[in-house]
C-alpha cells in the first residue's frame, strides 16, 4: 500500500465517519422527538421541512451561529477542551464498528475491548466539563456521571466476557459469524439484559439519566456550555446511543445476519430497533436516585453478571480446553 493510497483511504474513512456521526445525530434527534411525540399523543416537529425532517438541521445551524460564552470564573483551557474530548470518542467508536462483513472502516481483532476502552474517554470530557465550569450543578452532574459510568462498566465487561467466551474472539465479525445459526440473545439472555441495562446507563439515558437529571441538576455537566460546545456534547450523546445499540446488535442480535435483505440493511434495522427501545424506555420511566442506581449495580447486576459468567463458562467451555 503506497503512501498516497493510505492517505486517500484515511481521508475517505475520516469523511465517512464524520458524515455518519453528524447525519446519525441529526436523524436520531429527529427520531427522538418523533418517538416522544408518538408516545405523548403529540405530533412533534412538522413545520420545518417534510415531517419536520429539517428541524434538527435548523437546530444544528442555529447552534453554530450562537454566541460562545466563556464565563469569567471557569478554568479556561479545560473548559475549552472538555467538549472536544467528550466528542472525540464518538467518531473513534463509529470507526470500529463493522456494518456488514467487510464493510466498515475497520474490524479490529480486539474490537470489543477497543470499544470499552475508547468509550471511557468521553467520561474524561464529562469530568473536565463538570469541574471546569465552576458551577455546582455541573460538578454534581460530573461526579454522578463518573461514579455511574465506572460502576456500570464492570457488569458490562463481565457480560461482554460471556459473549467473548462463546465466540472465542473479540473481533466483531467473528462474533457475528458465531451467531449465524442462533443469536446470542437466546443463548445468553442474562448477559443480554445486563449488557442492555448497562449500556443505557453508560449513555446516561432515562431511567439512568442522573448525571444530567434535568429536574434536579438543571442540565448537569453541560449547564454552562453554549452553542457548538453544547452541540458537541449532544452529538457525543447521540453517537454513543447509536454505538451502544450497534454493539448490542453485533453481540446479541446476530449483527448483519438475516434472510432476504442485504446484511447492512439488517444491521441498521436491528440497530434502530434497539435505539427505538432505548427511546421508548426514556419516555416511559421515571429516574432512579443515585444511591439506588449504585445499589442496583453492585447488589444486583454485578453478582448476576459474575454468576452468569461462571455458569456459562461451565456450560459452554466446561472441562474442555478453549
Amino acid at each position, binding site marked *: 500500500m503506497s503512501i498516497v493510497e493510505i492517505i486517500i483511504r484515511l481521508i475517505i474513512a475520516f469523511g465517512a465517519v464524520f458524515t455518519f456521526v453528524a447525519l446519525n445525530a441529526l436523524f436520531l434527534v429527529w427520531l427522538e422527538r418523533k418517538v416522544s411525540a408518538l408516545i*405523548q*399523543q403529540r405530533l412533534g416537529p412538522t413545520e420545518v421541512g417534510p415531517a419536520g425532517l429539517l428541524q434538527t438541521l435548523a437546530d444544528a445551524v442555529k447552534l453554530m451561529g450562537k454566541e460562545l460564552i466563556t464565563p469569567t470564573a471557569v478554568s479556561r483551557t479545560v473548559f475549552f477542551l472538555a467538549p472536544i474530548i467528550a466528542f472525540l470518542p464518538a467518531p473513534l467508536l463509529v470507526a470500529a464498528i463493522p456494518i456488514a462483513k467487510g464493510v466498515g472502516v475497520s474490524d479490529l481483532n480486539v474490537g470489543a475491548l477497543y470499544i470499552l476502552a475508547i468509550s471511557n474517554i468521553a467520561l474524561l470530557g464529562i469530568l473536565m466539563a463538570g469541574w471546569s465550569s465552576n458551577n*455546582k450543578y455541573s460538578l*454534581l452532574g460530573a461526579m454522578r456521571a463518573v461514579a455511574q459510568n465506572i460502576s456500570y462498566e464492570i457488569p458490562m465487561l463481565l457480560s461482554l466476557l460471556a459473549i467473548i467466551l462463546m465466540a472465542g474472539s473479540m473481533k466483531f465479525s467473528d462474533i457475528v459469524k458465531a451467531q449465524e445459526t442462533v443469536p446470542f440473545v437466546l443463548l445468553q439472555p442474562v448477559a443480554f439484559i445486563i449488557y442492555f441495562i448497562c449500556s443505557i446507563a453508560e449513555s446516561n439515558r432515562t431511567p439512568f439519566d442522573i448525571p444530567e437529571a434535568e*429536574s434536579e441538576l438543571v442540565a448537569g455537566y453541560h449547564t454552562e456550555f453554549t452553542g457548538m460546545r453544547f452541540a458537541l456534547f449532544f452529538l457525543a450523546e447521540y453517537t454513543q446511543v447509536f454505538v451502544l445499540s450497534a454493539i448490542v446488535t453485533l453481540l446479541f442480535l446476530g449483527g448483519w445476519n438475516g434472510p432476504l435483505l442485504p446484511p447492512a440493511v439488517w444491521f441498521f434495522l436491528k440497530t434502530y430497533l434497539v435505539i427505538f427501545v432505548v427511546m421508548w424506555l426514556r419516555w*416511559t*420511566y*421515571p*429516574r432512579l436516585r*443515585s444511591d439506588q442506581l449504585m445499589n442496583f449495580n453492585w447488589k444486583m447486576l454485578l453478582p448476576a453478571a459474575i454468576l452468569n459468567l461462571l455458569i456459562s463458562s461451565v456450560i459452554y467451555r466446561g472441562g474442555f480446553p478453549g
Partner: protein
Amino acid sequence: MSDSETTVALEIKPTAYQQQLLDLLSSLHLAGIQLSDFSKTGVDFDAVANSETLPAAASALRDNGFALDCILGIDRNPGLEAVYLFRPFADGARVRIRAQVAPDRALLPTITGIYSGADWYEREVHDMFGIVFEGHSHLRPLLLPHFTNFHPLRKNFHGSPIVIPEDTVEIPEVDLQAAMKLGQTDRTHRDFFLNMGPQHPSTHGVLRILLHVEGEEVLGGRCHLGYSHRGTEKLAEKKQYVQILPYTDRMDYLAPLNYNWGYAALLERATGIESTPRAEAIRVAIGELARVSSHLVWLGTFMLDLGAITPFLFCFEDRERILTVFERATGQRMTTSYIVVGGVRNDVYDGFIQDVRDLLDYMRKRLPEYDRLVMTNEIFLQRTRGVGVITAQQARDQGVTGPVLRGSGVDFDLRRDEPYCPLYQELKWNVVVEQEGDCLARSRVRMREMDESLNLIEQALERIEEGPYRAKIPRNFKVNAGEYYSATEGPRGMVGWYLVADGSMTPYRLKVRVPSFPNLQVVESLIPHSRVADVVAILGSVDVVIPEIDR
C-alpha cells in the same frame, strides 16, 4: 370595632365540649374570654393575651391537640395586633387569641419553640407590620427583599416602591452561611451550598431553596420566598369587595374556582346571604372538577420532577378537556372568577351536564391508566416510599393541611368537618387517608381523591335543579363591621380567609391563609439528611403553588 361587636357570646349556651375548652382557656390567665357564634364569625372562642400569657396559652393549646391555623397581623391604627388562630382536628372549634402591641414598641414573644409552624408566619407578620418576635432565631424578611425598610401593610404606608440598592442584588454568601446556622458539619472543609431557584425546573415557580450539601447528601436547607410577591393583601384594602374576586383567581392558578368559592363563602358568612340550591350543586360539580384538574397538574409535574416526562403530557391533555368545560361554563380557561357571593356568576350552558358526564366517563378510564403507568411503577415506588416522612404530630405543629395532612394519617377534611356547603353533608363520599406520611402516601391520597371527586361530581350533577343560579345581592355590596373567618378545602388544603370589615365597601384588612404556606414550610424540616434527588421529590409531593404563598 371592639370585641363586643364581633362576638355574640352571651346568647349561646356552651356545650359540654365548649365548656371544657372555656375552662381550659380561663385557666391560662387570658383576658376577654368569649364564646363566639361560629356560623357568623367562623371562630368559636375569643381570648386576649399579652406578652406574658401568650407562650403559656400556646403551649397549653398544643398539649390539648390544637394545631396552628395561622398568625396574622392587623394594624388597628393606632396599635398593632397579632391574631393567632388555633384549631383541633377533631371538630371545628377554632380559638382566636389576640395580642396587642404598641406600634413604637412592637414586641411579642415567639411561639416557634412551641409550634414550629409559627416560624414563617411570624416572619411574615414581621415583614408586613414590623412586629418583632423576641426569641425568633431567624427573623429575616420572608416575602420582601432583604433590603426593604418599610412595612407595607401598616396603614400609614402608602405605597412607596421598593428601591433596589445598586450593590445588593445578591444576598452575600457569608450572610447566608451565618443565617443558615446549620452546623451539622465540622468546619474543617469549605461548605458546599447549592442554590436551587428561583429559576430551576422543579421549584414549581419562583421558589428559591438554598441547600447545604455534602456530596449528594443534603444537610439542610432554607426556602427563600417572595419572588412572586405581588402585594395582593395591600391591594385588597383599596378594592371593593367585588373587585377583589379576580385577584383570588391569580393566587392559586391551578384551582382558581376553589379560591373563588372560598372568597364567596367568606362574604356569605359575613353578610348572611345564602346561595341558592342550584348554585350549590353547580359549585360542587365545578369545584370538584377544579380539584381534579389541579391534582392532574400535580401528578404531571411530580412525575416531571422524578424524571418521567410522558405522564406530564398525559395529565395536561386530560386537564385540557376539563378546561374546555370550564371555558364553556365560565368564559375563561383559568382565571374564572365564576363563583361569586350568593351563587355563581352566570348559569351553566345547556349541554353542561352532558359534557361533564362525558368527562367523567373519560376520566374514569384514564385514572386506572395512571395507576398502571405511574403508581405501580417500581422506580416510582423506590423514589417515593419512605421519602420525606411527615408524622402526624409534625403535621399538627406545622399547621399542614390538605392531602399532605391526610397522607400523614390525620382524618381531617374541611368539606366534612367544617361544612361550607350543605351538599357535602348529603352526598356520599369518603375522606381519603393514608397512614405512612411519605411521598407515596401523599401521592396515593391525591390519586384516590380524584376518584372521590369524580363520585362527588356525578352526584352533584343529579342535584342541579331548576331555580335561580344566584341570590339577590344589593348593588352597593357592603359588609357590616366585624371580623370574619371562613375556611374551605382547596386542592392543596385549607384556604382560610380572615376579613376585618369596617362597614364600608372595601375591606379594612383581608388576610388569606393559604395551604401551600405551611405545606412548604414543612419541607424545610424534611430536607436534612436526604439526597438532592429527594428534595425534588419531597417538594413535588407536597404540591405547592408559589404565587399563592407569596401573594
